[in-house]
């Protein structure tokens, strides 16, 4: 068995949070480490709660520089802003990060903060503010965010309609491991924005051929090819468009649009049989996709062009059935949203355990509406709204749990009150008696200490006489005074005897003085130890006595204040949830209604074309018969 060392321990940190990595490798403040523990699990509420309290307490210390958080204060303040940002508290995050920027912090930390502030502004569409924040970066930039900074800068130039400046940055980023593909594509877009169409197409061509196996870069490569193909298609250069459209992977996120455009490119050059190929593939895909729906109508149109009116009629019929079924599904979805089912599904626990919960929404069998909302779900504002709704639901759950705990606190305080209140008067009486005795002993101890100290400077042997010796000395002094004041003279022999006795006693006191002083000192030191134990026990008693009172006195006000605050917050949260939920439902229903209207129009066209195809098929049949 080992004894726990009393020396202060330091944990080694494998890594600090976010951008602060590399700034600290030892953890001196447990509460900071605890906040990181929650932050690493993406529980930013718990992380903020702990770190916020710790930073405030640190600031309230008389000598903050002696506190354990002092080792990490820059990281802690930075992390505070970072956690707020991740918890979507942009207002507070902005303030916290600005405070870091204006504080006396390490250059790398300041530059990281400037980047994060710029990102907040960019997310909020405050392009000029974002650029100003980015321009505050000066000196060494932490390596992990160097490319992030430049990529953001280039995008800001694009947003500011400064394609030339953005091109310079994108060109430098083309070799970046993390942004190579994106920079190549964005460079093409910058050329387009600058009106340099041929250079844009050359660049998109390059971006469309990058070698990579990264899923994100593969997607951006597909996008480059799709954009290039679309540009050629819109310019009537179908032959040049097709190679680009054919480069788009068949299983990528842009494949549907590419297949659709490839079909239209073939149609434009009257190669109807070639248009049938991509559209046949597309028409069999997920029916909720816009491109797939268009292909369901375009495929029979191509067959009609090929004079295969019978097959065209069959495909129009299929499209009509599919559109009808989808309209029914959309109607059910709209009703489901109106009944609040979408919001119910959103707050389900298992959905939110995954980081890509928005995508997983589609897997919910009870929410067919989400199939039609992928574009909406992908928009920043709508996602923020959804996330806010979830955060509000979490806050409500927390607040309700806390409200229940206030009653438990009240009960606990009442039980303690009942337990201690009858006991404490007797305890206090005994304590007062003990206290007065202890005070007396302390005074006596102090007096003895003073006497010893005096004796060390001014020897007084009589002070160290035993009680017996003191009695004898007193008797001798008494006899001497009697002899001095007597009317008759005493014999000399008596005076000599008295003197001898006094001399003997003085001899003993003088010769044994040092030994006695040593003994006195030794005894006093033993007494010191006993007094220290008594003092510690006394202090412990006083603390326990205070703790007894503190365990039930003074809680009513804070509990009631918190109860009121929690109750008010529940009302506010519920109100906001209702408003946020309503807004989400309205936007979702509008989206679904638009898609329904779109499908109904498609249905009308399919119905008209179906009839037309039947007519043509019948005419063709009649013609064959008559011939």
């Amino acid at each position: 068995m080992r004894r726990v060392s009393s020396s202060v321990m330091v944990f080694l940190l494998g890594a600090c949070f976010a951008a602060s990595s590399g700034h600290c490798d030892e953890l001196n403040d447990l509460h900071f480490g605890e906040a990181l523990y929650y932050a690493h699990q993406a529980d930013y509420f718990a992380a903020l709660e702990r770190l916020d309290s710790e930073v405030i307490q640190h600031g309230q210390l008389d000598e903050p520089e002696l506190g354990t958080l002092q080792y990490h204060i820059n990281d802690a303040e930075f992390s505070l802003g970072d956690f707020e940002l991740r918890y979507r508290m942009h207002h507070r995050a902005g303030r916290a990060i600005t405070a870091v920027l204006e504080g006396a912090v390490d250059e790398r930390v300041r530059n990281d903060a400037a980047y994060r502030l710029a990102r907040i502004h960019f997310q909020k569409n405050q392009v000029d503010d974002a650029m100003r924040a980015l321009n505050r970066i000066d000196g060494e930039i932490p390596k992990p965010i160097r490319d992030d900074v430049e990529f953001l800068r280039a995008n800001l130039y694009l947003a500011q309609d400064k394609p030339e400046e953005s091109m310079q940055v994108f060109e430098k980023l083309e070799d970046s491991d993390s942004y190579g593909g994106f920079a190549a594509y964005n460079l093409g877009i910058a050329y387009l924005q600058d009106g340099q169409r041929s250079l844009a197409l050359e660049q998109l061509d390059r971006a469309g051929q990058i070698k990579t196996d990264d899923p994100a870069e593969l997607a951006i490569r597909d996008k480059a090819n799709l954009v290039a193909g679309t540009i050629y298609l819109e310019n009537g250069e179908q032959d040049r468009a097709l190679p680009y459209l054919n480069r788009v992977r068949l299983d990528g996120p842009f494949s549907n649009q590419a297949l659709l455009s490839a079909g239209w490119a073939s149609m434009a050059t009257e190669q109807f049989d070639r248009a049938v190929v991509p559209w046949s593939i597309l028409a069999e895909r997920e029916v909720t996709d816009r491109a797939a729906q268009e292909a369901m109508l375009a495929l029979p149109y191509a067959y009609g062009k090929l004079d295969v009116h019978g097959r065209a009629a069959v495909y129009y019929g299929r499209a009509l059935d599919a559109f009808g079924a989808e309209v029914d599904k959309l109607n059910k979805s709209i009703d489901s949203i109106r009944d609040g089912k979408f919001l119910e599904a959103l707050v389900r626990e298992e959905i939110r355990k995954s980081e890509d919960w928005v995508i997983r929404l589609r897997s919910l069998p009870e929410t067919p509406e989400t199939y039609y909302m992928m574009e909406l779900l992908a928009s920043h504002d709508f996602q923020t709204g959804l996330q806010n709704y979830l955060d509000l639901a979490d806050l409500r759950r927390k607040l309700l749990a806390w409200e229940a705990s206030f009653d438990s606190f009240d009960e606990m305080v009442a039980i303690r009150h009942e337990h201690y209140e009858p006991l404490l008067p007797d305890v206090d009486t005994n304590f007062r008696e003990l206290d007065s005795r202890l005070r007396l002993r302390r005074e006596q101890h102090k007096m003895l200490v003073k006497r010893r100290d005096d004796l060390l400077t001014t020897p007084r042997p009589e002070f160290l006489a035993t009680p017996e010796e003191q009695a004898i000395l007193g008797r001798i002094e008494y006899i001497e005074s009697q002899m001095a004041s007597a009317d008759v003279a005493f014999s000399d022999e008596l005076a000599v005897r008295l003197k001898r006795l006094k001399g003997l006693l003085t001899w003993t006191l003088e010769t044994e003085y040092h030994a006695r002083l040593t003994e006195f000192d030794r005894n006093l030191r033993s007494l010191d130890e006993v007094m220290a134990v008594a003092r510690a026990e006394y202090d412990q008693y006083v603390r326990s006595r205070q703790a007894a009172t503190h365990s039930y006195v003074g809680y009513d006000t804070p509990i009631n204040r918190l109860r009121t605050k929690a109750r008010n917050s529940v009302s506010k949260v519920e109100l906001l949830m209702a408003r946020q939920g309503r807004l989400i439902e309205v936007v979702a229903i509008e989206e679904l209604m638009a898609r329904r209207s779109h499908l109904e129009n498609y249905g009308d066209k399919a119905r008209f074309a179906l009839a037309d195809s039947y007519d043509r098929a019948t005419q063709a049949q009649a013609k064959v018969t008559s011939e």
Partner: protein
Amino acid sequence: MSCLIRTLLVLLLVSVPLANSLAQDLTAGDMKSLDGQVQEIKSDVLGIASELSNLEERLLYPSNTQVSLFVALAENEDFRLDSVQIEINGELATHYIYSFKELEALQKGGVQRIYTGNMTTGEHQLNVTIMGKLKSGKDFSESDSFVFSKGIEPKALGLTLSGPGIQIGSW
């Protein structure tokens, strides 16, 4: 016919997103306004949480009896920690089983408060048992005992766990 259908298809494709974006623009302002209010209420609730934690600590774990145990992983440890069991004076204080996310948080340098309780002043015995799997795939279990002294001030103990053993220190 072909021109008509093509034009209609194009019109449909173009007009739908336009209608959508209009609807979204109308609500974007509301979304932003609500977002500001959500941020405010988050701030309020964080304040309540902080006050409540302080109150709970004062009420449930007064400073003169408070003992807290924290767990961290040693640097660059790649073993998989499955559980930690802690006994204080022979009684089970906690038996914690780690999820993947929690283990990852520890590996990234997070520190977990595994136990908070009340104890009298004086000496106490602590038994720690950890179970997990080494990188080689071999299961392992490690136990150790420690004695610590509780004074009148709050006591914080840090356990640093590694593949081969357990380290402990006061805070």
